[in-house]
């Protein structure tokens, strides 16, 4: 028997460092300035109206009013420029808009995006901020044109901050905790299957303990992923559980592994139980693939990148997020492997005490 207690694997320290880094950076890095709402939210053609724009994380007082530009935009060609700007506070800005007599397209009403360009804060955009409806009784007074002031020459701000997204706001930070759980789960389950295959080829109790420990840790990460997901769903979708296809399939995937543990424990002879559990583990993993990658494509989902992608699309991450997201995946996966190794070692000690090894 060889004792390697003094040997500390470098990857354990690295994963702890990465997890701490992703928690600190994920929680402390601020969001980019954004627009929460514009009041009033409705306007009519031919009107002259002063709108108040309410910012988030913004510092409107930090630069000269004449350098701030605001628009109400319909598309890349059609936009209205706001005039006589007043900065009321760091987060409130008032601008007057003169609406033309016609809409950019023949319809009863159009939705306009609000855009603020600020030299210090950069650009912030609120989609569908104002509904402009056609006023049939109004007489043509002003001659303002949709094409006079197209949106352009924006101050794109590049710094270490997370994007501001409507609906999810600060909860965008959950990306670094919710998503890595699923990555870690997948890696742990793959490791568990690898040890199950090795056990079938060479039935050593060591491989069986490893397979069980990795499956157990994977299950733990599954519950954590479900919990962080439910927290997020409660905030962004309005309910913790909304029978989204991915929520359902995840619940089923966790059921598979709970069944695995029941199967393991329902044999009198440990060797027989270990062998059949290894067989079931391989079989269950094979049916996990259609569960997680084929079935979700057949149904609509609330998750980003829905109807097609199992995870989210590349446009959902910007470069700053990548700098936290990828280390978080590596860190949590490493942590999971360390936990599984510890679990297997504990089980070995317990088995030795019982005289099973």
């Amino acid at each position, binding site marked *: 028997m060889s004792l390697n207690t003094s040997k500390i694997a470098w990857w354990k320290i690295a994963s702890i460092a990465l997890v701490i880094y992703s928690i600190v950076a994920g929680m402390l890095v601020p969001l980019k300035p954004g627009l929460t709402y514009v009041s009033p939210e409705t306007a009519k053609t031919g009107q002259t109206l002063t709108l108040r724009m309410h910012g988030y994380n913004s510092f409107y007082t930090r630069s000269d009013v004449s350098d701030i530009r605001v628009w109400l935009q319909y598309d890349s060609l059609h936009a209205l420029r706001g005039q006589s700007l007043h900065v009321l506070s760091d987060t409130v800005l008032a601008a007057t808009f003169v609406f033309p007599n016609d809409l950019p397209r023949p319809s009863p009403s159009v939705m306009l995006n609000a855009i603020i360009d600020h030299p210090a804060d950069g650009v912030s955009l609120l989609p569908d901020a104002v509904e402009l409806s056609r006023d049939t009784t109004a007489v043509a007074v002003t001659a303002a044109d949709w094409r006079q002031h197209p949106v352009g020459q924006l101050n794109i701000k590049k710094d270490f901050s997370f994007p501001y997204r409507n609906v999810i706001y600060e909860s965008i930070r959950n990306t670094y905790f919710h998503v890595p759980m699923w990555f870690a789960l997948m890696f742990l389950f793959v490791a568990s299957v690898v040890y199950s295959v090795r056990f*079938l080829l060479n039935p050593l109790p060591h491989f069986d303990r490893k397979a069980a420990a990795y499956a157990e840790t994977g299950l733990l990460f599954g519950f954590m992923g479900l919990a962080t997901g439910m927290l997020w769903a409660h905030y962004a979708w309005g309910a913790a559980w909304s029978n989204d296809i991915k929520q359902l399939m995840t619940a*089923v*995937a966790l*059921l*598979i592994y709970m*069944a695995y543990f*029941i*199967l393991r424990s*329902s*044999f*009198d002879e440990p060797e*027989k139980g270990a*062998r*059949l559990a*290894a*067989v*079931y583990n*391989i*079989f*269950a993993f*094979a*049916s996990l*693939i*259609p*569960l997680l990658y*084929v*079935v979700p494509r*057949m149904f609509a989902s609330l998750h980003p990148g829905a109807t097609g992608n199992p995870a989210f699309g590349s446009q959902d991450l910007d470069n700053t997020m990548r700098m936290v997201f990828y280390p978080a995946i590596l860190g949590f996966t490493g942590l999971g492997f360390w936990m599984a190794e510890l679990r297997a070692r504990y089980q070995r000690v317990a088995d030795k005490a019982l005289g099973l090894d």
Partner: protein
Amino acid sequence: MSMKMFLTLLRKEVLLEFRQRYAISGIVLYVFSMVFVVYIASVKVQPPVWNVLFWLIVLFASINAVVKSFVQESGARQLYYYQLADPSMLLLAKIVYNTLLLLVLSGLAFGVYSVVAGNPVKDAGLFALVLLLGGLGFSIAFTFIASIAAKANNAATLMAILSFPVILPILLTLIRLSQIALRVIQDTSYQRDIINLLAIDAILVTLTFVLFPFIWRD
């Protein structure tokens, strides 16, 4: 040689079923009872509900029909078979036999169910294909799970908890396809779902034959 062996084994399964007639009669009665429970619980069934209830009946009947395929014969006799014949041939015979059994059962369930609860099927050809694919998928997954569960002390409980998560992708695809056959949903590209289903079946059947040698040996 192996074809002859396969046919003999298949014949053995059929003979066994007919000699122990209580097993098959029990399953048939089970299907009838389930159909009547559904009918009494909800007299007028709308097509979407009809579809779900039909598949639930078929699912439970299938589990009960397949679970006995390894439990009904004693361990000693199983071992005797494995000495006489190629174990994977024995498994193949059981899968084929169970597929035929499930086809008969689901056909029967469909007959009785459509008499009591009406027949909303619009695309009979597709629905028949879905029943065929369902029988095949259920048979592969359940036969394999039954061979694992039979080794444990609590075979019936284990059969249910081990097979439900595994069968779910197949079941969801089947329900979706039969919704198309019932014109509950419109989808012209359902061939992709059929290919998915066949791919899942292919994966499961391959694994079944790779893993079975580790199960039967005690």
